């Protein structure tokens, strides 16, 4: 790829991630109003994220007593960068892929595995107890979502016999992975909630910790952190759409339209979980993950392996 191509790809991914985060914020507001039983007013909700951002931007960036300033500043940038890398691995349409690498699914998995570092830094850096507990929590639950996520992604790659995302999409021409591997998408979405520390698995930032790892941030740092978190949600939704819902495959509409629509569906599901599913206690989630989710993900990859063997004959 030429230098110009790299620049175009980086700008495109950044724009897509930022726009996706804006849409995610809008969906969140609309769903919150719907669940609360107040008038939804979707058009008014379009301006709400902008108003919120302006109000937060006008506030000073505060500090705490003896924070680790460098890592504190790094945390939102790292999270946003990891989300962008994850999104770059998801193809919008045939040939329309920012990070067209032979092991795209590994790239995505590696980027998402490092989210734990960004969240821990955000919690640990301000030298404040409740954010630090939030950071601890994320470390404690890390493997509990990372293992199911990695295993179901491997299972989804098996029918394609490739770790690149485009062949995985093409391998779903006859049957989407959501049907071929029925355990895959539900497990992926549960892991995605943990990865994006969102909704029932917003454990590092729970109300019980008064905001946890993001309790001490204000001003532009708060905006960056929230946008980066929404970017992670968009990235996992896009990858879920590509790997389990056939990506750009679909009749009549252009491939990109199908990909965007499927990403939106997963985004709505993930955001809706925030308003309908209560926070899960950390220890019970970890136990459930090791006792149920990880064995189910292994079953998923086992079934996918058998299917691949049968198909090869």
């Amino acid at each position, binding site marked *: 790829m030429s230098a110009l191509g790299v620049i175009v790809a980086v700008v495109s991914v950044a724009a897509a991630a930022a726009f996706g985060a804006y849409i995610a914020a809008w969906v969140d507001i609309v769903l*919150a109003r719907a669940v609360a039983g107040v008038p939804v007013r979707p058009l008014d909700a379009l301006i709400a994220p902008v108003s919120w951002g302006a109000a937060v931007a006008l506030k000073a960036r505060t500090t705490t007593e003896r924070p680790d300033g460098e890592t504190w500043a790094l945390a939102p940038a790292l999270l946003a960068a990891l989300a962008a890398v994850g999104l770059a691995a998801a193809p919008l349409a045939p040939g329309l892929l920012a990070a067209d690498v032979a092991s795209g699914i590994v790239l995505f998995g590696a980027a998402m595995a490092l989210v734990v570092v960004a969240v821990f830094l955000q919690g640990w850096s301000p030298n404040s*107890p409740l954010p630090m507990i939030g950071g601890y929590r994320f470390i404690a639950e890390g493997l509990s979502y990372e293992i199911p996520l990695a295993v179901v992604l491997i299972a989804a790659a098996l029918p394609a016999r490739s770790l690149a995302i485009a062949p995985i999409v093409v391998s779903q021409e006859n049957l989407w992975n959501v049907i071929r591997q029925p355990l895959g998408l539900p497990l992926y979405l549960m892991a995605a909630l943990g990865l994006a520390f969102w909704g029932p698995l917003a454990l590092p930032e729970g109300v019980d910790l008064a905001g946890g790892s993001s309790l001490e941030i204000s001003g532009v740092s708060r905006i960056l952190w929230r946008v980066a978190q929404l970017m992670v949600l968009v990235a996992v939704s896009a990858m879920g759409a590509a790997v389990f819902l056939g990506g750009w495959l679909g009749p009549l509409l252009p491939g990109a339209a199908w990909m965007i629509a499927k990403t939106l569906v997963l985004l709505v599901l993930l955001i809706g979980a925030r308003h309908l599913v*209560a926070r899960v206690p950390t220890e019970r989630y970890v136990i459930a993950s090791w006792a149920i989710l990880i064995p189910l993900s292994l079953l998923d990859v086992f079934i996918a392996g058998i299917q691949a063997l049968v198909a090869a004959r």
Partner: protein
Amino acid sequence: MTSTLARLASGAPSRCFALAGAGAGDVGPWLRLDPSVAIVDSPRAADVLLVLGRLEGEMLHAAAAVHDAIPPPRGVVVWSPDGWSSRRWPFVDAVTVRDASEIAPACRRLRDDLFRRRLASSPDALPDLDPAPWRGVGPFGQGGAGMTGGVPYGRPLAGRADDRDGLRLDQILVRVGPFLPPFPPGLLLDVRLQGDVIQEATIPAPIADDAGASGREGPSGAPVPHGHPARLAVAADSPFTTALTRPVPIAELELARARHHLAWLAEALRVSGLEAYGLRALKLAFGLDLESAESIDALDRWLRRNVSLRWGTNRVGVVTRAQAEGLPGGPVARASGDDRDARSLDPAYQRLGFEPVVRGGGDALARWRLRVAEARQSVQLAKRSRTSESTPSGVIEDPRGPLSDDVPPSAGLVALLPALLVGMEWGDAVTTVVSLDIGVIDPAVREVTSEGTGP
């Protein structure tokens, strides 16, 4: 640039960090229904410090620290229905309102004026000093009592101890409160944490203050001496306070009880991560009438079907039957199988066929279910009662428990906390404290604990 941002920001709700003091009543929950105000969980996310009711003694000092944690530009709005003020008031430029309906517009105006620079940000109320003098010898706090036993800036370094899995891990000592949002305002806890797990919880001894000499009145109008437990959690304008001395229509009492339980449910749902559904409960609470039983049923059905809520509350914070019997009564005791309810002794309630709602289990789930069932029962009682009035007897069943001149409604619950919380993960501890519905606490509550009141 700033004026453009200020124009855009005017469409956002005014973000307030609310401090509830004595007499705040249910103004805080009620404000959550106003879309022009957002009550936030961290002062760092706030524009306005909102003081509801009276703050005294060390609560005022804590309020000043919270104020200084709000990033500039910031302002202070005080709701003071009786025009109360303190000579130790730390905020020089606070906007005071008397009418609750004026709170949201005042917050909004103040926020807009701050953003448009028509007003200066409220200055720091406390000096920016280290919380305690440097007491270590070396640059990292080493020295003092042993190579790693220094106490830099008055804080002990993390020590190590065995955890529940047999590992030796760091422990940190953290003081939480008195304004940690999920906790009752005024509650101070010293907790020793190992990761997310509470290894030790104590309620610190009170700091001497002059609050008790303020000449405040108890529920029956009698002066309350310093440290008297009746200083706690009693709203002077509550119908339950009035019913101690005068007959009050049962419909009024029972609708107030149902409203309280539903407002509590909204807060409990919010702490469980279901803020939007909590707003639904809050709307029901403040729109409550004699025909609301079916709406409460619908809410109850939803709660029962929500597996995740059951998962987060089942077997959490169990108050045993023996512990319940050490309490003066109230919903927490009834959720542990103890059927005491002061209404059972009132002839007016007996004529209505009143039977206390009782649940077993004693965990947070049982307390959730009991309060929803009581809210429903209260609406039905209100509907049946027509013109019946309560019989004053010196004791009334407040939504939090029996209230008298001598005993506040949530007496004994704070004393239960240390034993309940040890060994819990922080999230479960918060679920437990919220499920007890302790109410606003004055610093004197810790005197109650230290005197050994409660089981």
